[in-house]
């Protein structure tokens, strides 16, 4: 089993990165790997509660983050400074996460076998 980290640094609907990341995460989990997701910079916007996408005609994929638990993907980490800069708190997020500082995030990255950036 390898340690895979998915680094999410883009907001959800302006580009396709966030959705593509989620799809690759689900594929990786199917292969029974150790999967971590981290949300940094605008990536923290992917997890904001209350997304309503009807008006823009794009599927709201944010409920999928809540389904990750069912695939044994339970390691979700969020960068504290990225939340703070955007006026967000842990209570604004739609899933339970672990909030880390930059040093903890850097240490976690260095422990991975594979890092995929989105």
């Amino acid at each position: 089993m390898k340690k895979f980290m998915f680094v999410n640094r883009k907001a959800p609907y302006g580009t396709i990165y966030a959705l593509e990341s989620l799809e690759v995460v689900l594929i990786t989990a199917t292969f029974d790997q150790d999967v971590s997701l981290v949300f940094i910079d605008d990536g923290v916007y992917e997890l904001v509660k209350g997304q309503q996408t009807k008006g823009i005609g794009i599927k709201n994929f944010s409920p999928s983050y809540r389904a990750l638990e069912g695939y044994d993907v339970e390691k979700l980490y969020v960068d504290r400074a990225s939340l703070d800069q955007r006026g967000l708190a842990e209570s604004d997020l739609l899933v339970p996460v672990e909030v880390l500082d930059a040093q903890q995030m850097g240490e976690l990255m260095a422990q991975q076998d594979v890092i995929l950036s989105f």
Partner: protein
Amino acid sequence: MLHIINKSPFDASSLDTCLRMAQPGHALLLIEDGIYAAAKGSAVESRVAEACTKFSVFALQPDMDARGMTGKLMDGITLTDYAGFVDLVEQHNTSHSWL
């Protein structure tokens, strides 16, 4: 661990965020538009100079040459070529290509 940056520091937050998270002893490789961070006299010079004291910092010479920036290379940054790029990836257990 090796961090690879390919975006201009004036266009993207990847360099700043990387520098915030990189740990002492990690390596940083600037490629493509990321090489603009390696230039003397820019607004990010002091941040990059500080990074050079904590990390090994490399810049890909073909990308510096292509952009006419090789003559502006800051002290403390090592130029490398494609073979050196491969060596860096091989020498580190983990690589992260920041997007």
